[in-house]
Each structure stands twice: as C-alpha cells, then as structure tokens.
C-alpha cells in the first residue's frame, strides 16, 4: 500500500486567488460596513484573510493515494469525506490546465467513472498536481503498468504512438458556423446593458455609439433591422471563431499501444483527455445544419462513461472538432478500424416513414397556427399575427423533407449504423459488442402503418440508439443480424420459410 500524498505545494498560490472572487460579495459588504465604523483597513484585512485561509486549508486537508485496486481521496476540514473508486471502474482520465495553472506548471486531474454520464457524477478530482505527476498518474491508472508499459519505456514513447488527427489551421474557417459564440455574445450584451442601466448611463448619449443610434433612428425601419441583424451576425461569427481557436488550438488525437486514445487541445486552457479503447463502442458523426451546409462535421466518441450530446465538448468525448466531413469520416473509420460503417449508404425507410415526417411537420405547424388564431381572437390581437405563421409552412415542409432524406440505417462490419435528424444530423455507429438488448416500440399510428422503432440499448453514449419508423420485419432482421441471442426465443416464423 502506497503512502498518502498531498497535492502540489504551488496550489497554495492558486487556491486563495480562486477563493477571492467567490467571496467578493461578502468582501464588499464587509468593506462597506468597516468604512462606516471607522477602522476600514482592519476589516478589509480580515475580509481578505478569511477566504485566503480557507483556500489554504484545502491544500492542507486534501490527500490522495493510489493502491493496487483503488484510488482514494480524503478531503475536508469540518466535514471530512473519503472518496474511493475501484480502479477497474475507471473510464477516463482528463487533465485540464487553466491559465493560472499553466503559469505555475500545474494541472487538474479528473478521473471519470462510469457514472459520469448522469448528472451527479462520481468522478474524482485532484486539483493541483504538477504536470509530471499528473502524466505519471494517468499512465499508471490507464495503462495498467505491467509488461507493456516497461516495454514501451524501453522502445521510447514517441515511436509507439500513432497520430490519427491533428488540427489543420484551415479548419478555423468552420469556426463561424459552429454558433458557439451565440451564448458569449448574448451574455456580453446582457451584461453591458445591465451595467449601463445600473449605472444610469445611457450609452447612446455619448461617444461613437451616439452616431450609431442617430443613424438607426433616422434610417427606414427595414434597413435598421437589416443593419442590426448583420452586425449581430458578424459579432457571433467573430466570437465563434475566437471560441474555436481557444478550444481547439493545437488539437491532436493519438492512439497509444496501451489501448488508449489521447485528445489534447486548447490555446489558453489546455486539456488532455484519455479514453480507454475497450470502453469505446463506436463513433458518432454529427453535422449541425449550418456546418453541414459548408461541408463540415464533428466526430464524437460513443464510450461508456462519456457524455454525448450537448455537453459533449465539456464531457471530453469529442474526437475531432468541426472539420471537413471527409476528415471526420476518416478519423471515425481509423478509430473503429473499419471503413464500411462510416461510408456505406444507409437504407431509406420508405414512403410510410416519409408520410409520418410530413404529418408531424404539418401537424406541428397547424397546432401553432391554430393556437395563434385562437389567442388572436380571444385577446384581439391584429390578424397579421396568425397570418404571418403561414410563412412558416414552407419551412416546416422543408424540415420534413430533410428529416426524411437523413433517416436511414444499415448493418455494416458488425456495426449498427443509424442516421437521423435535420437541425443536427447524426450518423451513429455502434458496435454489436456494445449493444445490451433490444426495445421495440410501436405507437398506435406506427402499427397502422406497419412500422416500429427499434432501439438498441447500450451503456455507452446516449444509452440508446434508435432506428425510427422502420418496417417491423426489417427491424427484426437488423436485430437478428447484430445480436441474435436474446431475440431468438421470442421469434415466430411464418409459413414462407422455416430455418
């Protein structure tokens, strides 16, 4: 059994700095109260000393150790807790370094367990290890020490790893189409507006903004709206591009002989994620509408213990940032070591599935228009409000057409391939080994149309991958091809042929 170890001493410099912004509201209050009572300086000193002291106790009270079968972390001064994670439940090791960390040569290590796909994650976080300690810890945890590691050390690390992808600076052109800047611009605008109204300053009264406001007031309405729209689009595009560079600069995806994939990226905050390949059950190519329009795509891992979907970038399952679609497919194929699932054409689901796409789109539109018409009549809104919704009908029809053209499935190279979606089109490739069981769903309307939704349940990624609105016989054929065992006892064969 190894000794208990502390975090890096240099964290004593970082913890207080991290604590002060958190204690800022209280500090301001203390400061205001102190200056009234006369000895403000003393109070301010106390106000700073308390959070700094608390920050430092974090370092004194945190210890960790790695034993033969567990990782244990002891934390807390008043409320002590011991976190223990079994080593064979470890899925990922994530090493993040913020600007302050990098200045001091430190990193934060997050050890992910299988539960991290749900909200209250059971991951272990060690904030503040030196770069070398963190790398050694990662190798010890994921490469299972043993013969392989020593062999690797003998031959030299660089020769054994293979690089699967590296950021090409031309990919930055996809930055504006990721729309990742929408939130940033919105938050900034909201913050600025809030600040201006709090300080009772009208920014349109002075400076360069006055000229802009004057111009907008005197321009025709349509022109003013168009100008504002273009300006905000440019702001979002710039912010998204900056975001792309910050997050994905120096991106590298490598495969290590210990059976892991490494993703490193980041300009100011660097991040290195390690995924065990035996936890990897497939990949997903996702193409948000705008990115698809310019021929871009992302590649995401489908692995147990890794979040996919909205938090994919933060959850560390991203395998390739927005890049040319061909590149995304190449990387995906290299990871699952099979070309077919990513390039094969998918089987369309036929007329009845197409009709359901249109019924839903038009039905949704009719509901909206009806609701608008009813509220207009009730509250005496002008008639153009609900008449304007007619404009949305072509958009609904286009959405239905695109949703149908995206819909498809295939079985290739022992993988289930499904493709769905329009706003975000996803092609999911799930290996048959990652499939746990099958669900077959049939709504009233699906049964009338002879269709079913086949769901492959899995412990990886989204937890379930659906083949939507497929003919029942086809659904069963797919299921049998991939994982016949559990289905076999419950099948009944018709007269057409007995095996």
């Amino acid at each position, binding site marked *: 059994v190894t000794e208990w170890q502390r975090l890096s001493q240099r964290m004593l410099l970082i913890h207080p700095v991290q604590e002060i912004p958190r204690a800022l509201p209280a500090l301001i209050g203390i400061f205001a109260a102190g200056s009234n009572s006369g000895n403000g300086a003393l109070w301010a000193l106390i106000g700073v000393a308390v959070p700094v002291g608390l920050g430092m106790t974090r370092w004194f009270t945190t210890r960790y150790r790695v034993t033969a079968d567990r990782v244990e972390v002891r934390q807390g001064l008043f409320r002590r807790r011991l976190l223990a994670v079994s080593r064979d439940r470890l899925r990922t090791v994530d090493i993040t370094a913020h600007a302050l960390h990098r200045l001091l040569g430190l990193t934060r290590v997050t050890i992910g367990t299988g539960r991290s796909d749900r909200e209250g994650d059971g991951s272990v976080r060690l904030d503040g290890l030196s770069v070398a300690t963190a790398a050694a810890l990662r190798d010890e945890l994921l490469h299972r020490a043993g013969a392989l590691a020593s062999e690797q050390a003998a031959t030299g690390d660089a020769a054994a790893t293979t690089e699967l992808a590296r950021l090409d600076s031309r990919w930055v052109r996809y930055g504006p189409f990721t729309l990742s800047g929408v939130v940033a611009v919105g938050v900034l605008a909201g913050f600025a507006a809030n600040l201006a109204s709090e300080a009772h300053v009208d920014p349109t009264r002075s400076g360069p903004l006055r000229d802009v406001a004057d111009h907008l007031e005197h321009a025709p309405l349509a022109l003013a709206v168009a100008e504002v729209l273009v300006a905000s689009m440019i702001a979002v595009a710039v912010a998204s591009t900056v975001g792309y560079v910050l997050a994905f600069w120096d991106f590298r995806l490598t495969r290590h002989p210990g059976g892991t994939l490494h993703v490193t990226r980041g300009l100011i905050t660097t991040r290195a994620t390690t995924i065990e390949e035996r936890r990897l059950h497939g990949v997903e190519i996702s193409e948000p509408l705008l990115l698809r329009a310019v021929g871009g795509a992302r590649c995401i891992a489908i692995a147990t213990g890794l979040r996919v979907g909205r938090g994919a970038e933060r959850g560390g399952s991203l395998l390739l940032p927005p890049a040319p679609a061909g590149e995304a497919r190449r990387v995906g194929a290299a990871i699952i070591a099979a070309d077919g699932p990513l390039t094969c054409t998918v089987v369309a689901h036929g007329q009845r599935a197409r009709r359901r796409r249109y019924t839903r789109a038009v039905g949704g539109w009719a509901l909206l228009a009806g609701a608008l018409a009813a509220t207009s009549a009730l509250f005496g809104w002008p008639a153009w409000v609900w008449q304007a919704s007619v404009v949305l009908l072509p958009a609904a029809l286009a959405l239905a057409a695109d949703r149908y053209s995206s819909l498809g499935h295939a079985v290739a190279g022992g993988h289930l391939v499904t493709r769905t979606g329009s706003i975000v089109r996803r092609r999911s490739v799930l290996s048959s080994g990652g499939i*746990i069981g099958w669900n077959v769903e049939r709504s*009233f309307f699906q049964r009338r149309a002879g269709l079913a939704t086949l769901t492959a349940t899995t412990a990886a990624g989204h*937890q379930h991958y659906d083949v939507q609105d497929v003919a029942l016989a086809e659904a069963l054929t797919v299921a049998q091809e991939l994982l016949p065992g*559990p289905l076999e*006892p419950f*099948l009944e064969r018709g007269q057409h042929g007995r095996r």
Partner: protein
Amino acid sequence: LTATLRPPRHRVSRRAIVYWTTRALAGWLALAIAQIVWLVADDSHSGLHVLGLVATAVLGAAHVTVMWRYEVHRWEAAPQAVYTRAGWLHQESRIAPISRIQTVDSERGPLEQLFGLANVTVTTASAAGPLEIEGLDRVTAQRLVDDLTTAAQATRGDAT
C-alpha cells in the same frame, strides 16, 4: 423468411385486475367526492357542476370496467433473455439478455401487499429502458427474482 415477435407467454396475476380496479376506483371516487362537495357549497352554476359529475362518472366507469392492462401486460423469462411487453396505445416490447442483467428488484407498495402482489424491475448497464413487470403474485415474483439472480451471477464481467 418473415419473422414476427410473438407476445410474451405469461400474463400477470389475475388479482392484479382487482388491484388496478380498486386503485382506479379510488382515484375516480376522490374526484367525484370533490365535485359533490363543490356542488353543495356553490349553487350558482349547478348545471355545469352536474355535467362535470356525469362526465366523471362515465369516464370513471369506462376506466374501471375496461381493464386493458391485464390484456397487454405480459412477460417471459427464457434461459437467454427476459422479455416484457406493455402499453395499449403505445406498445413497447423490451428484451434484455440474462448475461447483461445488473440488478433485479422486487418491490411492494402497502396496497399491493394487501392483494399479495409485487413488482419486479430488471435493470441493465444501459440507462435506457429497465424492464418492469407490475402485478405479479408474490410467489411468482420471488421465484423470478431468485431465478434471474442465480442466472445473472453465472456470468462474469461488469456487464457493460
């Protein structure tokens, strides 16, 4: 070759019908009593109140007499896999291999104990779709839990 998925072999306990009926009846009665109290307390719109009460009575009677659930709730445990089917309008069949079972729970509410019933839930490593069987009689439920637990223990690994 046309293969179809046949329904699971076993139905749940017949006592489940009585249990479900009682539960449905209790719910509808509570609603009806609330409506009667309102009718007595406030006599301004008595016509509307009576109409509401009639609607409750008709819907309640329909719900209580037509116990579809017994027809559609089915289950089966084969040596390789567990299979459940539920839902009348929205039918869902779930199949999980025995080797991938992670937990088998049986659970009884106070009213269910009165009727000697139990629910069994089988979960896998996937967060999508645990298999739930409601309204088994207690003996069958216990036997099912024992069988599945024994069978699941026979396989190694963490079943993810």
